[in-house]
């Protein structure tokens, strides 16, 4: 993607000398090895056959007996595909809940004047100083009194509308030029039409960020499902993987296959949607 930023900064100051370029690429490669290497190592282990030495001394990086059998075997040991489906259900509820709940409330707080708006906004802001772990015990008591312990609904419900996302959507709606909204008002648009036709098309970037991070957050979460779920048949992937590790720690190939099942979907989601994310970062950067 050609970026105007690139042209602007390609003056003499910003064109690195060949020596600097080499040093930079060497450093980049080193950091790449440190950050991504362990994942590749794990991927390679998950593809190694039973006859290959995966322990210490001289384990080679490339699988000698390339096989996908470990992925089948991990499913014989724990119901890993059920766990993946459970994680997907939890993440799905979180994404829909946050996309809808945060958009509606964000729009109301940014664009509509109403009694009590300031108080509500203040309370949303106040929750930000409260780390989730602080209320997790009483959250469990609430879910228990709703009769939802040991259910996926119990896992998904508390995070279905996150306060931070409401505030992010409010900020996004505030940035929509008021003229657009005013024109719609003159045309006699009602609140719903203003939200759908004026608001939404202008907050797509922030909405995608909310969706990406809600999905990743729900899919990756460990502590909360660990507290809510007891029945091993209802586990989400992260809890199931820890269970696999605790019970059958003998075969690292199976654990490697399990971790890849939990990791690769996240990579796909992020890789598909990352341009929205880094665009946001760049927009912050271009301002200077």
């Amino acid at each position, binding site marked *: 993607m050609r970026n105007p930023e690139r042209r602007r900064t390609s003056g003499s100051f910003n064109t690195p000398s060949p020596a600097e370029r080499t040093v930079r690429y060497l450093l980049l490669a080193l950091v790449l090895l440190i950050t991504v290497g362990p994942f590749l190592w794990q991927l390679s282990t998950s593809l190694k056959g039973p006859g290959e030495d995966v322990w210490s001394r001289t384990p080679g990086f490339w699988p000698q007996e390339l096989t996908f059998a470990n992925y089948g075997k991990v499913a014989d040991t724990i119901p890993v595909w059920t766990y993946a489906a459970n994680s997907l259900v939890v993440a799905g509820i979180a994404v829909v809940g946050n996309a809808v709940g945060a958009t509606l409330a964000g729009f109301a707080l940014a664009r509509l004047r109403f009694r009590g708006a300031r108080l509500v906004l203040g309370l949303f802001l106040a929750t930000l100083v409260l780390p989730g772990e602080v209320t997790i015990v009483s959250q469990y008591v609430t879910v228990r009194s709703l009769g939802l312990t040991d259910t996926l609904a119990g896992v998904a419900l508390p995070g279905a509308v996150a306060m931070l996302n409401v505030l992010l959507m409010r900020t996004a709606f505030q940035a929509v030029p008021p003229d657009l909204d005013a024109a719609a008002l003159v045309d006699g648009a009602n609140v719903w039409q203003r939200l759908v036709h004026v608001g939404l098309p202008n907050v797509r970037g922030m909405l995608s960020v909310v969706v990406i991070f809600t999905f990743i957050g729900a899919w990756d979460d460990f502590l909360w499902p660990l507290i809510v779920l007891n029945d091993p048949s209802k586990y989400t992937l992260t809890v199931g993987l820890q269970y696999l590790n605790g019970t059958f720690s003998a075969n690292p190939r199976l654990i490697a296959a399990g*971790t890849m099942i939990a990791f690769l979907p996240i990579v796909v989601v992020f890789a598909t949607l990352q341009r929205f994310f880094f665009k946001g970062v760049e927009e912050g950067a271009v301002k200077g």
Partner: protein
Amino acid sequence: MTHRRWFTPWLLAAPAVVWLAVFNLWPALNTVVLSFTNAKPLGGGRFTGLANYERAFSDEQLADALVNSIVYLLICLPLLTLCPLLLALLVEKRLPGITFFRTAFYTPVIASAVVVALIWGWVLDDRGLVNGLLGQLGLADQPVSFLTDRWLLLFSAIGLTVWKGLGYYMVIYLSALGNVGRELHEAAAVDGASAVRRFWHVTLPGVRPTMMLVSVLISVSALRVFSELYVLSNGTGGPGGRDMSVVMLIQMYSRGFTGHIGYASALSLLLFLITIGPMLLLARLNRKAA
């Protein structure tokens, strides 16, 4: 902006307001209430006054957990404040392929802490890659017990947290670096200032506010650590349960027949008090700066 019916905004805000009340405000209040009871994970419980707080004062495992938290914070803070800044400077320059590197460096952030801890748990195992390499290089006669020694386990978890956090804070710095005046940099370069001098006199002052914010984020998340220690120790909290964090204790007491919701709530309030510290400090520093 006008709308015909007074309740329209409330209708739109309703789901979020319900969640605010049921899953945020109520649990916060209820944590305080529960901390004065002997409630159990399976239900029941009655008022027991300050019993839970008295118990906390003489809880040796909690004392260990607090020591662990302080060690965690003291090591994470300098490493995660500085390394991601250097990393951001490295990926700031628009070289060909830089987007790939930025995205790749972010990978550990999007992976679940469980996945990451399982990977590292295997790499750091007695028979794992690191010990294999150390043995081959002749640096260790016997495997280093990264996962079974009280302090090494803690340091391994800290290493994991630092490794996983690099990309996260890198992106925050990257966003801030764009706001450090490019003209200022160029002027300094024209005046013949070396890269190191430019870093000290232009970059550092420019990202100072971000640095303060980042250090608060690091401190709060170091005090909240859970998954790394839990998975690396396989849920045991290390030898003698001495490698627990406060959140691990909260989790432990929130479950099963031996659980104690009342005591877990008292620990939660304690966690709140220690995490609010860094945030108040930032607010004070910001007020001074302004």
